[in-house]
């Protein structure tokens, strides 16, 4: 598998979570909730 295909597959695997994160990121008012949500996304 080519490097580009691997990269695309990895990005595709968390595309939905990333979209949700980008939409909701600015709405957090608590640092604790922000970090908790971000941790879930990157996991």
């Amino acid at each position, binding site marked *: 598998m080519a490097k580009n295909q691997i990269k695309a597959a990895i990005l595709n695997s968390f595309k939905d979570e990333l979209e949700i994160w980008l939409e909701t990121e600015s709405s*957090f008012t*608590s640092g*604790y909730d*922000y*970090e*908790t949500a971000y*941790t879930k996304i990157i996991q």
Partner: protein
Amino acid sequence: MGDLPRSRNFKKKLHSCFGKIEVSKTHVLAPVNSDFGITARLQHLMCLIGQKEVFEEGSETFKELLQIDVSDNQIKRVSEHYGKVLDPLIKANCEEVIPKLITKEESEYTYSMFDGSMLLTRDKGWKEIKLGRICTESHHIDIQPTKSIILKSIFVSHLGRRKDFFLKLERFLTATKHLVSYRGWGKMDMELGRR
């Protein structure tokens, strides 16, 4: 993290669950307890691990689980800070910070056991230490014919005089109708396991 200003006056370095980060002072992660420079969530995890393990092992756990460097001294400072904040609330019987003993029925049995010893402390020399454990009948489950486990229980600890320890212990037992109390750790385990 986020848009980072160029000037040092407008950004802040923090320890977070992702390691050391730099954020703008206006970022949602920025307003943390300035004494530590640690995000709220990482402080929470430090307290959690600081309760479960000795601080040195806690540092290794952070490395293992989150791949971040957190020193045993940092875990100690944060844990002791919040311990000191909670102490007056516990002494004042603030219900929000005191765990509750949940009983299924009013008539069910409550078991309590307690024991104590002397502990050599750094600043005050030898001091009495007491530890109690309380559980209810419904949280005591038989898993084998001769073996049982306690699913939920409340631990009560006290560094100091016996009289003050009993005051702490009693607040969980005042509503109990049927109480079985044991002095010494092994006795309760033996009695419950025998049934």
